[in-house]
C-alpha cells in the first residue's frame, strides 16, 4: 500500500502546477481584478514552492524499497 506521504506529494504537486500556471497567465495578461501586493506575483513563487514540496514527498516515496 502506498503511504500517505505519496498522496500528500501528489496533491501538492498537482495543485502547485495549477497555481503556477494561473500565475504565469496573470503575468502575461494582467487580470482585471486588482489584489494587494499583486506586483510580487504570489501565485508564481507560492505555486513553485508547492511543486517543490510535492516533489520532495513523491521522491522520498519512490526511494522506498
Amino acid at each position, binding site marked *: 500500500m502506498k503511504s500517505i506521504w505519496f498522496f500528500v506529494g501528489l496533491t501538492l504537486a498537482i495543485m502547485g502546477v495549477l*497555481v503556477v500556471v494561473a500565475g504565469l497567465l496573470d503575468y502575461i495578461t494582467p487580470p482585471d*481584478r486588482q489584489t494587494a501586493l499583486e506586483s510580487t506575483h*504570489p501565485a508564481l513563487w507560492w505555486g513553485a514552492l508547492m511543486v517543490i514540496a510535492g516533489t520532495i514527498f513523491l521522491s522520498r516515496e519512490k526511494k522506498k524499497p
Partner: protein
Amino acid sequence: MQALSLGVIDWLVIASYFGIVLGLGFYLKRYTRSEEDYFLAGRKNSSWVAGLAFLSANLGALELLGMTGNTFKYGMYVAHFYWIGAIPAMLFLGIYMMPFYYSSRIKSIPGYLKLRFDEKTRVLNGIAFGVMTLLVSGINLYAMALVLRTFVGWDWNVSMWISAITVAVYVGMSGLMSAIFTEIIQFFLIWFGLFLVSILGIVEIGSIQEILNRIPESFSTLWSTSGDASQNGMMITWAGIVLGLGFVLSFGYWTTDFLVVQRAFSAKDLRSARMTPVLASFFKMALPFIVILAGLIALVLSRDPGSGFALLEEGGQVNYDSALPLLIARYYPSGLIGLGVTALLAGFMAGQAGNISAFNTVWTYDIYKSVINRNASDAHLLWMGRVATVAGVLLSIVTAYWAKTFPSIMDYMQAIFSWVNAPLFATMLLGMFVRWITPSAAFWGLLAGMGSSFFLFLAVKFQWIDYSVLTLSTSASDMAANFWRAWWAWLICFVSTIVISFFTQKKPEAELVGLVKGLTPAAGETHVPRMRRPETWAVISVIVLVALNMYFW
C-alpha cells in the same frame, strides 16, 4: 460583499481535491478487510501519521474562520486556545492517560467506561457522544454551506449535498483510514492554502512587531492584562482562563473526546500512541501563526481607513467570521483563490469525516453491539459500520437543515462541548487515578455533571440567574461564561462522584488491572533511546510553550 469570482484554474484546483479524496476512498477500500481495519485503521499507523491526524481532526474550517474572527473580536487572548488551552492536556493524554487507553485494547472511549465501571455508564456516554457528534457534524455542514454561499456564491443545497455525499462515499468505503488520509492532506492544504495570507499581511504592514504596535495593548498581550477582566478584550481573568479553558474544557476535549483520541488508537504500538499527542502539540503551537496572525492583520487593516478593508455587516451586526475570506479576497489572485477555497472546503469535509468516523465506531461498538445485538460477528459489525456512516451523514444533513432554520445554534458549539466533555473528564480522571471510585458513582456523577452544565446554560440564557454568579465577575463575555460553566460542571461531577463512592459498592481490584494507576505496570520505556521517548519530547514541548507565553506575555 461581491462573491469571489473563480476562474477555470480555481475550479480545476477544487475538482482535483474532490478527485483525490474520492480516489483515495476507492484505493484504500481494497485494504479494508476487517472491522479493525475499518474502525481503527488496522492499528498500524506511525506516530507522525496518527499525530497529524490527531491534530487535523480538530482543525476544522469552522475553527479557522471562527478563531480568526474571534481574534479580531478578542485580540491575542484567543491564542490561549492553542497554547495553555491545548498543550498541557495533549501532553497529559500522551504521558499519563494513553497507557490505560491503549493497553486495554479498547476501541472507543465509552469502551473504557465499560471496563472500568459498567455497561450503563458506557451507554450513557455513548449516546451523549453520538448526539453531540451528529449535532457538531450537522452544524459544520450548515456552516460550510453558509460560508460558500456568502463568499463564493454557491447554492446552499448543492454545496452541502455534494460535500456530504463525497464524505459518505470515501468514509463508507474505507472507514477511519480514509478519514485519516484526508485529514493529513487537509493539514497540508490548510498550511499551503492559508499561511500565505499571514505572510502577505506581514509584507503589507511591515513586520509582526509593527502589527502588535498598531493595536491596543489589551489586544496584543496574553497575560499582562488578565488580572482585571475589564482590562482585556475577552473580559476574563487569569483564573477563568486557567480553570475553565486550560484545565476543564481543554482536558475534557483533548483527553476524552473520541473524535481526536481515536486517531491515537490507530497507532501501531504503545510508544507511537503516546507520541501521537506529544508530536501534535508542536503543530498545535504553530497554528496561531495562521489564525491569530490573520485576525490581527485584519484588525490592523480595519483600523486604517486608507486600507479599504472592513468586515461584513449583516443587520447591524459585524460578521467576524468574514475576516479570513476577506483577507483571501484581498491578497489572492486567480489560482490561489481556488487553493484558499479548497483549504476551507477540505477543512469542512475532513472535519465532517472525522465526526462520522467517530460516530460510526461508537454507534457500532457502544450502542449496537452493547445493547441491540451482542452476538454480532466481525463481518456484521463491518457492515453495520458502513450503514452507520451513511445514516450518520444523512442525520448530519437533517441537523444542517435544522440549523438553517435556527441560525443561533452555531453559537452553542462550545456549550455542547461543555455539556458532554467537561463532566466526562472528571469521571475519567477519577476512574484512572482513584481505585475506590465505584460504577454507580461514575454513572450518577456523570449524569449530575451533564445535567448541571445544561441547567446552568439555560439558567444564564433565560436569566434565571445572573451570569456574575457563574463567572465571579461583573464583566464577562459569552466566551468567559462558557469557560466558567465548564468548570462548575466538572466540579459538580467530580465532587458528586467522590461522595457517592463512599456509599456504593466498589469493583473488585482484580477487574481493574490495566485500567487504574497503581494496578497497572508503568509505561516507562527505559530501553528506548532518550530522544525517542515521549517524555523527552513532552519536556521540550513544555519549554516551547513557556517561551511563547513569556514572549507574548
